[in-house]
């Protein structure tokens, strides 16, 4: 079994099975460090729960969804640019090419701030994630070059088996 300390968050969140729950509770009786850890984890969990936003609007989005599905219009982007694979790959290629051009044309490291400028501009130009809504970026928001060059996985909402 994993160390008890690693199970504390799962215990607080109610994610443990019966055996694990009993093991944690038994341990907490005798270990003041873990007990304190559990108390803190529980306090944070409660604070988070208290900060939950209850959506105040009772107005249903159904009329708007219905109108959009009946008219066949998705959203403005799709209307303007289409949403077919050829369009996605074409725009990705164009965006990468534009990013590379900007990266070459803007001097990097020649003066204060120039690197930041090049990076920011390139990021703006190569980001075409809005085209597909797929997950191309890492958790911290950094795009992997492979992801961009390979066009990433655009079928991110497939529901599998």
């Amino acid at each position, binding site marked *: 079994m994993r160390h008890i300390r690693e199970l504390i968050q799962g215990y607080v969140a109610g994610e443990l099975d019966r055996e694990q729950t009993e093991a944690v509770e038994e341990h907490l009786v005798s270990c003041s460090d873990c007990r304190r850890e559990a108390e803190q984890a529980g*306090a*944070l969990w409660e604070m*988070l729960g208290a900060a939950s*936003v209850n959506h*105040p609007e009772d107005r*249903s*989005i159904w009329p708007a*969804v219905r109108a959009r599905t009946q008219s066949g219009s998705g*959203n403005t982007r799709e209307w303007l640019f289409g949403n077919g694979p050829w369009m996605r790959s074409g725009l990705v290629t164009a965006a990468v090419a534009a990013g590379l051009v900007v990266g070459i044309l803007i001097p990097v490291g020649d003066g204060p701030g120039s690197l930041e400028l090049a990076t920011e501009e390139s990021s703006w130009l190569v980001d075409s994630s809005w085209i597909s809504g797929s997950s191309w970026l890492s958790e911290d928001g950094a795009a992997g070059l492979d992801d961009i060059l390979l066009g990433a996985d655009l079928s991110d909402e497939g529901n599998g*088996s």
Partner: protein
Amino acid sequence: MSQIPDDDTLMARTARGEEAAFRLLVQRWEREVKSFLVHMLGSVEEAEDLAQDTFVKVYRKAESYRPAGKFRSWLFRIAGNLARSRLRRRGILKWIRFDPFVHDTGGDQPGPDKVLEQTQREQEIRKALAGLPSRQRQALVLHRFQGLRYKEVAAAMETTVPGVESLIQRALATLRSQLAGKGDLL
């Protein structure tokens, strides 16, 4: 006694063009989806906008949807991807200021100091939440606010249960350090 159709049945009927089934599906889930998106984006308007996008996608994918009793995870996967995509655009379009968790709470009601203090604390928590990396935030919101189990969160985020645990642990560690000293036990 009429039986309430499950989500997979409603999806199948939606795929056959039954508007009433799709309507039921939207009305069944819209509140949860909007709530999730408000937590992710911090804006009611954007949440409503993306909630519509989410259900339009659901409608369009109805024919290819394969029933496996995991509709909720699939739905939140769509909403989550849309939210993260929107967050990425915000990160790049830096001139659009992100105002974390601005939402209509029903008007300003002057209350006692305790209420004010509580409100401030909630705002601090939401602000800290809004500063988390998007995947950590997504995992935490799905689990804590939408009530999805680790397994469902993993399905919604196309990762593993240990992966979800890790995301949530890191999110909570960050929140705890940011909120240290602001709560009774933190």
